[in-house]
C-alpha cells in the first residue's frame, strides 16, 4: 500500500506480505514527513519552539502544546496560576473530543459508513470555532505560553462551551445509534486487530489502545497535571482489546471529557493568567521528563537544559510512533480489508510519527 493510499491518514507506506487474502507479515516504512523537529529545537529559544510542537500532532495541537509548556514549567520549577490551569484543562479536553471526532469520522469512512463523517465534522466545527474565538487559530493553535496563558478567556467562553456540551450528548447518541448496534459495523470490527494487555504493555502502547486491552491507566488520574485533580471522571476500559473495544473506549472518553468540561466551566477561578516567568527564560541546568495524556496516548517531553536561553536537547515521546509498532502484531492473520480498519483504530497521525 503506497504512501499516498487514501486510507493511511498521511504518508505511511505499509509493505504487506500476503498469502492470498491473508496478511502474514507487514513492515511500515515511515519518515516521509520527517522535519527534524528535535534538531530545530536545539537552535530555538524555549518560547520560539512552542509553535513547532503544534505542527507535530496537528490534530491535537492544544494537548501537545500543554505538554511542552508544562515540561518547561517543571524545568523552571514554576507553577501556572489556578485560572490558567483550569482554562488549559477545558481547552485540552475540547481538543480531545475534536481529535476523537476526526478519528471516528475517518475510521467509519474507511469501513464504508458515509454519514458519521459528516456528523462528526459538524461537531468538530463547533469546537474549532471556540478555539478560533479564543486564540485566533483553528488547528495549530499555540494557545498556551510557558508559565500560563497568553490571552484572557473571551467573555462568552463559558456560554459557548456550555452550549456545545449541552447538545453534544444527543449527538453522541446519534453516532451510537448509527454504529454501535449496527450488525455490519460489529461484523467489521469485533475480533479484528486484537492486542492483549501483556502485548500492549510490552509494545509500550498507551492511550485508548492500551485501555481497550484492559489496562486501567490514564496519566490524568495516575499523575494529575493542569487541573485534572479537581474533577471527577472515570477511565473507560475495554476487555478484549479489539477494534470494537477501542471504538467503545473512545466514545466513552468523549463523554467523560464532556463531563470534565461541564465541571470546569462551573467555577473558573479568577486571578492572573500568567505565572512568575520572565521575558527571557534561562532554566537552571538539568533535565526533566514530563508526560501528559494526549488523545492518542502518552506524549512525553524530555528536555535537557544547559542554563542558556536555548534547550540543549528536546526529545518528544510521540504516542502514534510507538503505538504504530503494535500494528504488525495486530494485523497478522487478518484480511487485506481489515488492514485499513486496523490502521484506523490505532488512530495515528503521521506528523507525530515522523517528527
Amino acid at each position, binding site marked *: 500500500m503506497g504512501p499516498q493510499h487514501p486510507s493511511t491518514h498521511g504518508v505511511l507506506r505499509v509493505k504487506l506480505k500476503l498469502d492470498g487474502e491473508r496478511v502474514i507479515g507487514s513492515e511500515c516504512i*515511515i*519518515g516521509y514527513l*520527517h522535519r*527534524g523537529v*528535535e*534538531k*530545530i529545537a*536545539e*537552535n530555538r*529559544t524555549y518560547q*520560539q519552539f512552542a509553535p513547532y510542537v503544534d505542527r507535530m500532532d496537528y490534530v491535537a495541537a492544544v494537548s501537545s502544546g500543554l505538554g511542552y509548556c508544562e515540561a518547561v514549567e*517543571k*524545568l*523552571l*520549577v*514554576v507553577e501556572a496560576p489556578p485560572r490558567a490551569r483550569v482554562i488549559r484543562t477545558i481547552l485540552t479536553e475540547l481538543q480531545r473530543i475534536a481529535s476523537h471526532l476526526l478519528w471516528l469520522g475517518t475510521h467509519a469512512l474507511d469501513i464504508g459508513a458515509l454519514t458519521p463523517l459528516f456528523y462528526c465534522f459538524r461537531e468538530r466545527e463547533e469546537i474549532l470555532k471556540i478555539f478560533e474565538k479564543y486564540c485566533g487559530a483553528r488547528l495549530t493553535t499555540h494557545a498556551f505560553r510557558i508559565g500560563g496563558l497568553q490571552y484572557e478567556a473571551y467573555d462568552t467562553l463559558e456560554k459557548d462551551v456550555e452550549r456545545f456540551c449541552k447538545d453534544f450528548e444527543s449527538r453522541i447518541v446519534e453516532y451510537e445509534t448509527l454504529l454501535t448496534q449496527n450488525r455490519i459495523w460489529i461484523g467489521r470490527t469485533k475480533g479484528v486487530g486484537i492486542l492483549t494487555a501483556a502485548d500492549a*504493555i*510490552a*509494545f*509500550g*502502547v*498507551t492511550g485508548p489502545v492500551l485501555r481497550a486491552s484492559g*489496562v486501567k*491507566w490514564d496519566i490524568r488520574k*495516575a*499523575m494529575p497535571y493542569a487541573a485534572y485533580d479537581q474533577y471527577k471522571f472515570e477511565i473507560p476500559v475495554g476487555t478484549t482489546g479489539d477494534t470494537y473495544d477501542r471504538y467503545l473506549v473512545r466514545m466513552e472518553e468523549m463523554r467523560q471529557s464532556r463531563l470534565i468540561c461541564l465541571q470546569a466551566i462551573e467555577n473558573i477561578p479568577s486571578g492572573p493568567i500568567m505565572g*512568575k*516567568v*520572565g*521575558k*527571557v527564560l*534561562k532554566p*537552571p*541546568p*538539568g*533535565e*526533566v*521528563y514530563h*508526560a501528559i495524556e494526549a488523545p492518542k496516548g*502518552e506524549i*512525553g517531553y*524530555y528536555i*535537557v537544559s*544547559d*542554563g*542558556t*536561553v*536555548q534547550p*540543549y*536537547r528536546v*526529545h518528544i*515521546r510521540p504516542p502514534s*510512533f*510507538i503505538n*504504530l*509498532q503494535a500494528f504488525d502484531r495486530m494485523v497478522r492473520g487478518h484480511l487485506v480489508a481489515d488492514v485499513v480498519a486496523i490502521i484506523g483504530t490505532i488512530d495515528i497521525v503521521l506528523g507525530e510519527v*515522523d*517528527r
Partner: protein
Amino acid sequence: MADESKEPKPVHVPTGDKPASSTPPVSTPSGKPADASAPAAPPKPPAPAAPKPPVVLQTPLDNEFVTRFRAKFGAALLEAMEDRKQAILIVERARLVEIALHLRDDEKFDMLSDLTAVDWPKRDRRFEVVLNVYSFAKNERLRLKVLAADAEEVPSVVGVWPTANWQEREVFDMFGIVFSGHPDLKRILLPDEWQGYPLRKDYDILQQDTAWVRENLGIESGQ
C-alpha cells in the same frame, strides 16, 4: 553560503548576528544563569535568583530503593541523583540488560516509556543513552542513564521491552549509536543511504541534505 530560506543561525558561531528578537546577545554558553537584566527573580525559594552560583538541582539520591539497588549491583550503579524530584540512575553500560531485567521483573517497572540519547561532545564518553521506565504498580517513573563513547556499542534492551525496537533504531538513525543485539538495526526515519547523524552536536543544521540531494537528484541543495 547563501542561506536565505532558513533563519541564519549557525550553531557553532555563538555570537553570530542575532535575529531581531529582543533577547540580549547570549554570553559564552557556560552555565551562567539569568543575567542582571532578567526581571524580578522568580520568588520560588528552590530556584534562587541570579546572585547565587548556578543552582544544581541534581541532589544525590539515596532512598531505600537505591540502597536495595546498590546492594544488588554495587559497582554497576555509578551514580544516583534526583533532578526536580525525578530519580535518575547512571548505570554501567555493560550490565544494562541485566539491570533492565531486574527492574522489569523485581521492581515492577514493566513499561519503557521512552528511550533516547543526548550528545555531550565535550565529555570523554560523549553519548548519554536515557531510558525512562514506568511502573504501573508503584505509579513511579525512573530514568536510567548509560554513558557511551563514540564507537562504543550499547547493549540493546529489545529483549526486555519490545517497544525499544523502533526507539533504538531512531537513536541509531539520529546519533549513530550501535545497539548490539538489536534484531534489524537500520535507519527508520531518514532514507537508508543518508550520510551523517543529524542530532549530533557537530552536525551543522544547515548542510543537512546537500550530500543526499547531490547524489540522488543530481542538483545542488537549495539550503
